[in-house]
């Protein structure tokens, strides 16, 4: 049954594309976790905040307009200009770096050496705070983010596959672009970590704080750096998701999908985050298509990832690539 095979391949490809996004969010987690041991619950909200900021800047929104109007009785909402996408992206990167600096300066500087659970709680606080600030700055309405990425069905793939299978695949151009961007991003990050001074310092901090200090690395600087990188990755994820499903609160929930990805890939492994993301993306789509929809009444995508993560927790708690967990007695 060639038709069934063609469907399966199409589902597989779409799963890969969805997985790319999960991988991106998971990557943000891994960056911060490796360097500081902080499990950043706010990663998803950072993606939302970044996307909102980008939208706001592009459309010339006045930040905190609501607040300003309420206090001064004014009626301002827009500056009346539009900022080109690329310039707006650069400005948003600036905002995310500023955010990284503030997070380090006002929160984690005071929590150095604290228990992981306390650091984690701080990021929960950060998540809610950032969500509130985001709404206050840019308004909580649903926004359609369009930075000019191509969207809609890819005709070439549609026609080619029609020639092969007598059935044309539906692959969204946006997903293709997202995948390419993600690949470039990951390659750039790896190059950065391997070959630059700051990248080397980053790896040093991820490995051993004391040793890193002794070779002249400022932990504070590296922590700001990794939060900035995580902010940048969040922005990319935010742009992709925002273009697909609009900028709204649900965007911050992709962080929850990143959790099973991390359990698969391991919390400290960059390749793990990527492979884990792809496996979950493909796995949940294929499972739904082959088993979920025909036999289980559908909607298995909601829980498949978590079930897979549970299995991993039981049988391979360090994940696919994570360092082996050795209890020191």
């Amino acid at each position: 049954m060639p038709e069934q095979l063609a469907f399966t391949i199409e589902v597989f490809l779409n799963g890969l594309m969805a997985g790319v996004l999960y991988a991106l969010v998971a990557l943000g987690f891994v960056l911060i976790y490796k360097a500081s041991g902080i499990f950043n619950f706010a990663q998803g909200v950072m993606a939302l905040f970044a996307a909102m900021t980008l939208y706001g800047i592009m459309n010339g929104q006045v930040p905190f307009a609501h607040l300003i109007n309420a206090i001064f009785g004014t009626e301002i909402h827009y500056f009346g200009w539009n900022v080109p996408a690329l310039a707006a992206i650069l400005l948003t990167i600036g905002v995310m770096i500023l955010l990284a600096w503030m997070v380090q300066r006002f929160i984690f500087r005071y929590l150095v050496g604290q228990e992981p659970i306390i650091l984690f709680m701080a990021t929960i606080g950060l998540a809610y705070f950032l969500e509130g600030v985001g709404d206050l700055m840019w308004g909580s309405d649903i926004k359609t983010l369009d930075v000019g990425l191509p969207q809609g069905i890819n005709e070439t793939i549609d026609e080619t596959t029609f020639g092969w299978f007598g059935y044309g695949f539906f692959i969204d151009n946006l997903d293709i672009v997202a995948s390419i961007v993600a690949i470039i991003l990951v390659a750039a990050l790896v190059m950065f970590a391997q070959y630059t001074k700051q990248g080397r310092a980053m790896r040093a901090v991820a490995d051993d704080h004391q040793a890193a200090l002794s070779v002249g690395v400022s932990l504070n600087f590296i922590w700001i750096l990794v939060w900035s990188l995580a902010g940048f990755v969040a922005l990319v994820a935010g742009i992709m998701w925002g273009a697909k499903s609009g900028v709204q609160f649900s965007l911050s929930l992709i962080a929850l999908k990143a959790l099973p990805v991390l359990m698969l890939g391991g919390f400290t492994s960059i390749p793990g985050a990527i492979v884990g993301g792809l496996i979950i993306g493909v796995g949940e789509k294929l499972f739904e298509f082959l088993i979920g929809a025909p036999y289980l009444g559908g909607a298995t995508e909601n829980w498949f990832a978590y079930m897979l993560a549970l299995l991993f927790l039981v049988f391979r708690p360090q994940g696919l690539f994570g360092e082996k967990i050795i209890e020191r007695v």
Partner: protein
Amino acid sequence: MLDQTEGYTTEDGRKIGGVVMEMRNITLRFGGVEAIKDISFDIREGEIRAIIGPNGAGKSSMLNVISGFYVPQEGQVFYKGAPRPPMKPYQVAQQGIARTFQNIALFEGMSVLDNVMTGRLTHMKTGLFSQSFWLGKAEKEETENREVAEKIIDFLEIQAIRKTPVSRLPYGLKKRVELARALAAEPSLLLLDEPMAGMNVEEKEDMSRFILDVNDEFGTTIALIEHDMGVVMDLSDRVVVMDYGKKIGDGTPSEVRGNQAVIDAYLGVAHD
């Protein structure tokens, strides 16, 4: 007596220069525990300075004060003639003070070569931007740093393991890699916390030879902590002796060996 500015000549005829590092009236407390009690001493250019004393005497604490890991409650550190303001460890490292740790602190996930390369971080100047794009200057700098690292790897005779992940090395080699990383910084002051602890006789002899060679060939000033009295007598030019946080002796190895307080401390004579 020592001359503050002009230095002295060692028994084996090496010229020792002026004061590089001076600790003046250092007191360090942890809660109620006084780990260091009002200690003063100096380290001179080109010499091998040992700090010895029984367990818990405060030797590592002293090294940690010098390298900025601990901040003393009282006293003043002078480096290259100027009083040093309170500094973070990474800032001290950037000033040219490299160190090893009593309990080895290596980057376990990296290869030997990568570990040694991190020792070059303080010498890497090129900024984030040009490095990210691998422009000519950054590439040249990388090559130069790589050369220094390879030279030190050769010097310490660890070429055979240069690509090996550090986590797979035996203890004695790890100690040597840690020394290599510290040396890669081309430090003006090298601090070694028990470089020979836990080694067998042969490894100790190797390490002693390396320390002497480093001092001889690069002229590196070295302060080291060591328990093995034989080793200390062979290696060091001057010795500080600590006991219960106090300095109980300071001088050449032969002077110190004849000091009654030192003999008592090592024989465990009761304190009053």
